[in-house]
Structures are given as structure tokens and as C-alpha cells.
């Protein structure tokens, strides 16, 4: 089989497990201080700049980056352990999540020395937050067709166009964006795209909220009406944005957040149901746990691939395809089992609130970060089908 499709088994080192203990102790402390709620009523990651700063102070952001840029020079597997523990605890990690996961690594790989020095220490300290400016009204799955233009002007670029579904644009400092700097060529429609860092305080940028299905303001529409940004905002090589973004997307899809979004619902379900349950219920829960453990093994080997310095494109797509459908199924199963559970309506209002929030959010899992259909296309290409 194609080498790219291997899921190499990974055993976590003692160092990793020791780190896990440290993260857990820290999280317990945060819980005692009320920074992380004792009982979770929502799925997904809450936004807390304060908590991100605390993580930064512990050195757990920018974990793999050189110390010179505020990093800890740790391994991908150690980073895996940190993220897994944070997610399992329901910690409010949203503010820094994408900066630490993808924007930082892109700058580290493709940025200039000045850019690294300017942005990475802030990201690693949990003080500088990015959002991702890829999707547009007419370009989602077909990202390459994006139309927002960055025209070369004297000393910089002029940006005109609209980004859509930009999570956290209303509270991030910067957008790592993909714009068109020149026309696609006849033989390569991927040519002519470039990545930029956009300071969201730049005049001319309008961030309009888009209320989501759960009634929350989480993503946005971002208008650029002739916004001028300086030359040193260009990341990497002009026109080579597509290659850089492909690497970024592999990071975006690689982590345990792609199968842990509704883990709390499962945990709460087990707690609420108690020990006195039918065989059928046991089987349903058992099946979910089998999948959880399988996904965890697969996700670990994605981290192993990252550690080996290879792009985990296809493996990450496999894990996200499986993982998001898994996290989407949990609330459905929980709903069914809890409906059959006598007195559920009166007793456990927290479980009900959490379940309702999970039901509302679950359609997003198989859309954000690349739809299930697009991931299947990537997996098929990984198999050699064109």
C-alpha cells in the first residue's frame, strides 16, 4: 500500500506521560480557581484570553518552536498530549487555538526572520491571536477560485474583497489570509495566490457578525474595501500561497479536536445513566468507546507523522472524516438513550443543556475545516485515484 496511508502505532514515552500529569495538575488548579467550569454546559472551546496567557506562561503554546521565538523545543507527541488533555478537560482554549495550531507553524516555516520575531513570541505567550481568512462567499471547498485581490501598490498591497465564515475575526489581532495577487495561469489554476498577515486594526476592514445556528456570534464576514497593508505582510513567496496553505490545512485537520468536540457529552452520558443500564445501552456505549479508542490511536500516529517531519495530509483527512462523524453521532446516541431514561427531564438540567448545545453544534463538525465530501476526495487521491 501507498506509504502515505500508513498509521504507524505510537507508544507514548514516559516523558509524555509525565507531561500529561503536569497538565492535569495545572487543569485541576484552574478548575479550583474557577477558570475552568466544574461542570460543562457547552461543547466546543470557550474563548478566554486570560486562560491562553496562563498556558503561555507555562510554556505550553508554541511547544515545538525554537526557544528563540518563545517556544519550548518539544516534540509533536508531547504537543499531542497537551492538546488532548486541554480538550478533554473542556478548557477555554479558543483564543489561541488556531494561532498555535496553524498560523504560528506557517510563519515558522515560510515567514521571514523579522516576521518570526515579530509574531511568534506573542503567540507563544498567549497574547497574540490569529484567525484564518480562507473561505469566501463563492469559494469554500473550491478555495483556489477565491477572488479577494491583493494588488501591488507602492510599498505594499491594496486588498479588495470579502472573507466569510471567519471564526473569531471580531476578537483576533491578525488574520492569516489567502489572497489573489495575480491571475491563475492557463495550466495552473493554483498559481497567483499569496498568503498575508493582516492586522485587523487596519483602517477599511469591516467585520460583520454572522449568527450561527446555535444563535451565537462566532464567525464573521470580513470586508476589505481597498485596505492598504505594507510589503512586509506578505508571507513566503508571492504566488506560492497554495502550496503553503496545503501545508497549513494538514495542520488544521490533524489534531484531536476533530474527534473530541462532544467527548463531554459522552462522559456526562455515562455518568447520568449510572450503572443500572440495559444490555442494549451498554452495547451502544461500548461501541462509542471502541471508536473513541480507535480514533485516539489513529490520531496519535498522525502526531507521529508530524514528528517525523512528514506532511500527514491523507492520514489527517482519514481521521477527520471518521472523527467528525463520530463526534456528530455522540449527541444523537445520547439523546436516544437519555430519552429512554426515566426522570431525565426533571433531574439533570446540566446534561440537558450540554446535550442541546451539542445537537446544535454538531452539523458544523462535518463542514468546518474541509467538508466530509472534500476529505473523501483527498483520501481517494491518496489511494491513487484521480
Amino acid at each position: 500500500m501507498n506509504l502515505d496511508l500508513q498509521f504507524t502505532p505510537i507508544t507514548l514515552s514516559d516523558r509524555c506521560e509525565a507531561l500529561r500529569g503536569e497538565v492535569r495538575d495545572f487543569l485541576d488548579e484552574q478548575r479550583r480557581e474557577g477558570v475552568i467550569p466544574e461542570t460543562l454546559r457547552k461543547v466546543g472551546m470557550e474563548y478566554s484570553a486570560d486562560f491562553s496567557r496562563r498556558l503561555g506562561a507555562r510554556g505550553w503554546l508554541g511547544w515545538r518552536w525554537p526557544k528563540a521565538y518563545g517556544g519550548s523545543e518539544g516534540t509533536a507527541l508531547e504537543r499531542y498530549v497537551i492538546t488532548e488533555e486541554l480538550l478533554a478537560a473542556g478548557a477555554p482554549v479558543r483564543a489561541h487555538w488556531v494561532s498555535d495550531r496553524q498560523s504560528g507553524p506557517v510563519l515558522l516555516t515560510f515567514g521571514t526572520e523579522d516576521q518570526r520575531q515579530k509574531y511568534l513570541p506573542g503567540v507563544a505567550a498567549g497574547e497574540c491571536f490569529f484567525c484564518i481568512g480562507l473561505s469566501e462567499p463563492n469559494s469554500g471547498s473550491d478555495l483556489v477560485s477565491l477572488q479577494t485581490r491583493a494588488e501591488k501598490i507602492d510599498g505594499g498591497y491594496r486588498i479588495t474583497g470579502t472573507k466569510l465564515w471567519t471564526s473569531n475575526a471580531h476578537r483576533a489581532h491578525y488574520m492569516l489570509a489567502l489572497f489573489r495577487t495575480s491571475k491563475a495561469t492557463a495550466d495552473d489554476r493554483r498559481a497567483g495566490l499569496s498568503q498575508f498577515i493582516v492586522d485587523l486594526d487596519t483602517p477599511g476592514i469591516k467585520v460583520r457578525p454572522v449568527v450561527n445556528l446555535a444563535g451565537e456570534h462566532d464567525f464573521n464576514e470580513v470586508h476589505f474595501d481597498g485596505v492598504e497593508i505594507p510589503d512586509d505582510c506578505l508571507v513566503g513567496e508571492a504566488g506560492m500561497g497554495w502550496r503553503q496553505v496545503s501545508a497549513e490545512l494538514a495542520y488544521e485537520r490533524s489534531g484531536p479536536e476533530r474527534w473530541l468536540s462532544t467527548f463531554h457529552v459522552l462522559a456526562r452520558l455515562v455518568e447520568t445513566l449510572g450503572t443500572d443500564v440495559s444490555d442494549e445501552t451498554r452495547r451502544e456505549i461500548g461501541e462509542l468507546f471502541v471508536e473513541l479508542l480507535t480514533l485516539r490511536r489513529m490520531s496519535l500516529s498522525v502526531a507521529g507523522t508530524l514528528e517525523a517531519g512528514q506532511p500527514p495530509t491523507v492520514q489527517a483527512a482519514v481521521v477527520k472524516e471518521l472523527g467528525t462523524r463520530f463526534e456528530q453521532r455522540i449527541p444523537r446516541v445520547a439523546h436516544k438513550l437519555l430519552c429512554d431514561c426515566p426522570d431525565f427531564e426533571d433531574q439533570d438540567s446540566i446534561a440537558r443543556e450540554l446535550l442541546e448545545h451539542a445537537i446544535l453544534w454538531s452539523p458544523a463538525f462535518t463542514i468546518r475545516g474541509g467538508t466530509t465530501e472534500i476529505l473523501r476526495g483527498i483520501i481517494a487521491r491518496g489511494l491513487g485515484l484521480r
Partner: protein
Amino acid sequence: MQFSFTEDQQMIRDTAESLVARSCQMTEVRAFGDGQSDFVDALWQDLAKAGFNGALVAESHGGSGLGMLEAGIALEALGGALAPVPFLSTTAVADLIGRLGSDEQKSRYLSKIAAGQISAAIVGCPDPAHRDENGALRGQWAPVANAESADLLLVVVADTATGDADSYSVNVIEDIKDSCTVETFDTMDRTRRGFGAITLTGAAGVPLAGSLDGDGYARLGAILAAGSAVEMLGGAVQVLEMAKTYAMERVQFGRPIGAFQAIKHMLADQLVALEGLRSLVWAALWAIDNAPEEAPLAAATAKAVADQVALQLAGENIQIHGGIGFTADIDAHLYVKRVQLDRLVWGPPGIHTDFLEAHLEEMA
């Protein structure tokens, strides 16, 4: 068995569809969800004028003397338009009063129901109320449709006194707020309001003259299950239409997304599921009117399948819409949220599959 609509039924259907298109526009439904519209009374009146509220009321009481199939035709249109009216509970109540009420009780309620002057709620099917050792009525239900605004509440009570497991009385409560605790709550479904928990606090109301035997109880269960299923079918039909239309309009990679086989197959699977549901639903509604002994099984089957298919289609509609499907800007989310409630209101999904399981065991 006759599985196509008669000419009359087709006419009724055209009437229902054009009425709903006129009097229950999506802009109104959305505004209603935000608390900014009160078109519901007008819609209720229009339905009454067209004879739908009295579908199961005899002509002698001002009704149109039709059947559950015709009521189902209205329900399909109402479900498709996400109408916020308590049509199903009111229809089921009219049927019970017509069957069990004394002449006086019939005159007191039926013409008002048919004329759209009152609406009703019903509890106790499933889960009949019971009497405690002091003879006081006890029972608790949630969520109850129309709990907040019903003028009339019917309570199905298990008659343990007769020693017959299959005997029920039906009590009418007019002064709902004084006789029970009604706790209304918001649900995720913003297309309907006034769901609530109803707890009997001992008040009995007035029993309908006749009592309900096992067959009558089964008929009531079938009306509620099949009625809810046909409403869900209406929603699913709209959702498939919405998904198909978007798949033909939305262009990615230089083609409408409907040109990709992944989307084509999703839509084809949806159509297959929907047609299966449609057959089950109309068979159940037909059986209620024409083959009562088949109705409970047919209705439970229809509802069990509706619970799955409607959820599947509403969810996949969001998937096909991509990012915009996850917003409140288009109507896809309204259908998903409504389905979640539809699955619970007339008994949790489990009761229908449990019924089918019990039936299979009997057959074995």
C-alpha cells in the same frame, strides 16, 4: 387498498397547499420565532374557514365530516411550512369529543373547534393519568404541545377501578391554569411556542360521557403518531426540495455541486428514504379511516421511520449547504430544530420502536 388520492382529496390538497402558501409565509414564521409576528390567529381562522379544523367533526356540529387522511393532507402542508398552529392536538381532541361526548358536550365544544374559536391540548397518550389512593388525578407530561394557549385540555385516565387494563376515561379541563401546573419553556424550535410541562394537581375536570376502550385508545395513539409523522413528512419534502435547489445553484470547481456524485448520491438516498416514508405515512392515515385494526402498527411504523428520515434529511440539508447551512440566515436550521421537537412531543422515539418490537414478539 386505495393508495392514490381521490379527486376530492386532490382538491383538498390543492386548497391546503394554496392556503398555507398564502397564510403561512416563511417571513412570518421567522418573525414569529423572533417574537415579532402574530399571524397565527389569522392562519388558524383561514384553516377553520376552509373546513380543516373540523375535519374530524360531524357536519351536524359544523364540521366537514372528513377523515384522518384529509386532516393529514392539511398537516403535511402545515409541517412543510413550519406552521405554528396546534392543529394535531386540536384535531385529536375533536375526534375524542365526537366519539365519547354527550350531546351536550358535543354542542359545547365541537362547533367552536370547527369554527376556529378554540384550540386544544391533550395529555395521557402515551402515559395515561392515574388516580392516587384518594382518588385524585395524577400525572405529569413534558413537552406538551400547545400547553400555554390551549382553551381545552383533555386528559386520558387509566380506569383501574374497572379492573380492565384497557379501559380509560377522558376528562375535559377548561380552566387549565387553575387545575394543573403549567410550566411553559422555550425549546430550540422557534417555529412553535407554548410548549410546556403539565402536572395535574388533583383537579379532575369533567369526564366525557363515554369511556375509551382499548381500540379507542389505540386509535388515539395512531392519530397522534401518524399525524405527527405526516407533519414531519411535510418538512422532509421541503428540505429535500431546498437541498436539491441549492445543489443545482451553488457552483464550486466550475460546476453546480449537484454535478458531483457525492451530492447526487446523498440526494438520491434522501429521495429513496422519503418515498418509503411517504408510503408508510399515507398507509397509516388511510388505515385509521378504513382499517382500524391495522392502524396502530402502521402508525407506529410511520412515526418510527419519520423520526429517522426527517432527522437525516434535515441534517444533510445543512451539509449540502456548507457554511451557510450553519447559520440562521437561511431556513435549514429551522427544520432541524423542529424535527428535534417532533421526535419528542408525542412520546420519545423509543416508544414506537418498542411497540414494533412487542408486535414482532407477539407474531413469533
